[in-house]
């Protein structure tokens, strides 16, 4: 059975769906799922549920159950990592100039003074499951871009599994979620940007994989270079030892959060974190050194 890659653009990034070639209808369903998630969760759509909640900071806003689920997952990740994963960086990213889709963002522009940073403000996000409301604290804005993409990939794979598709991979801008493997293969052959895999690829036999990187999504304001990965403690673009982390996990939601958390630490801290959770990772330092951690064979 041959494999087909279906491509489309959604959630501010390129999406690829790898399926057996006779499943075009299922690929279109996946596309609709991403479009639906984008309409609910985009920080850049004024009419999205997320934008309405951000615009009404300080007040309860009714959102749909899927949106509430993503917000709760993000807050769960923030609590579990003691804020090293922070879903409330949207206002700061906008202050730094990332206030529209990256594709439409001017590469350079004037800078502006930054407001005093309040780390841990995410703890003041209030969710009411019974009323299906969220209240964003004044001065903050939710940005669920990464975890939302990962969860959308997981949801898409679950839908494909439920539809009886024998194997599938959904790649949401570098965040991969899988179901089964193509017949005769040892896994999905995945290339990882900036990682030398000897001209080949890394085979992923199950689960998920995500990459966080400071190499992409860069812009300048007032002559100062920025990128989209912020340090939740300082509210400024991360300037750590690592430039890129690729990590595996059972789900894409976990891999996405793990990659961001690992980026915050030194090589030693990232290594300890990856090993403690039985994950496998490829690290790239700012100096260009590449390291493989965990179960590589």
């Amino acid at each position, binding site marked *: 059975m041959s494999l087909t890659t279906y491509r489309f653009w959604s959630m501010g990034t390129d999406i690829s769906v790898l399926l057996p070639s006779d499943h075009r209808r299922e690929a279109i369903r996946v596309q609709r799922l991403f479009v639906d998630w984008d309409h609910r969760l985009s920080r850049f759509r004024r009419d999205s549920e997320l934008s309405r909640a951000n615009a009404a900071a300080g007040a309860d806003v009714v959102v749909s159950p899927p949106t509430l689920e993503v917000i709760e997952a993000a807050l769960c990740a923030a609590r579990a990592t003691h804020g090293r994963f922070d879903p409330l960086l949207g206002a700061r990213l906008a202050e730094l100039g990332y206030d529209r889709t990256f594709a439409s963002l001017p590469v350079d522009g004037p800078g502006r003074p930054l407001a005093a940073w309040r780390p841990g403000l995410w703890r003041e996000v209030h969710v009411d499951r019974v009323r299906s409301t969220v209240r964003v604290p004044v001065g903050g804005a939710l940005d669920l871009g990464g975890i939302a993409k990962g969860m959308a990939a997981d949801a898409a794979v679950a839908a494909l599994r439920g539809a009886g598709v024998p194997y599938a991979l959904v790649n949401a801008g570098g965040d991969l979620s899988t179901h089964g493997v193509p017949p005769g293969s040892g896994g999905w052959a995945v*290339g*990882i940007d900036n990682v030398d895999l000897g001209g080949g690829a890394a085979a992923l036999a199950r689960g998920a994989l995500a990459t966080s990187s400071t190499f*992409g999504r860069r812009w300048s304001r007032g002559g100062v270079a920025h990128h989209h990965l912020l340090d939740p403690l300082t509210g400024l673009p991360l300037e750590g030892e690592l430039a890129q982390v690729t990590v*595996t996990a059972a789900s894409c939601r976990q891999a996405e959060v793990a990659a961001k958390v690992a980026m915050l630490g030194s090589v030693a801290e990232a290594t300890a974190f990856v090993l403690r959770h039985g994950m496998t990772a490829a690290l790239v330092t700012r100096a260009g050194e590449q390291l493989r951690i965990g179960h590589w064979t």
Partner: protein
Amino acid sequence: MQQRSDQPAKQSRLRRLKGLAVATTAGLGMLIWGAVSGTVVASDPVATDTLQPVTQDTTDDSTFFGAQGPAPGLSQTNAAPMTRSHGS
């Protein structure tokens, strides 16, 4: 000895009677005040206050990262990449 041993019991009964009298007086007072002020005073009020669920940071982040099973490993293959992971 018998008289002395009965004495604490009598004092206890007396304290209970005094307590009952005070409680009755207070209850009557509340009813009278309620009637005068136009408010209704429940004879046995039980306030209900629904508390929001309390969440705490977990001390172990494996509650999040381990919740969906073990992470997969990776093996290097000579096969051409079917797809690529780039930073997001």
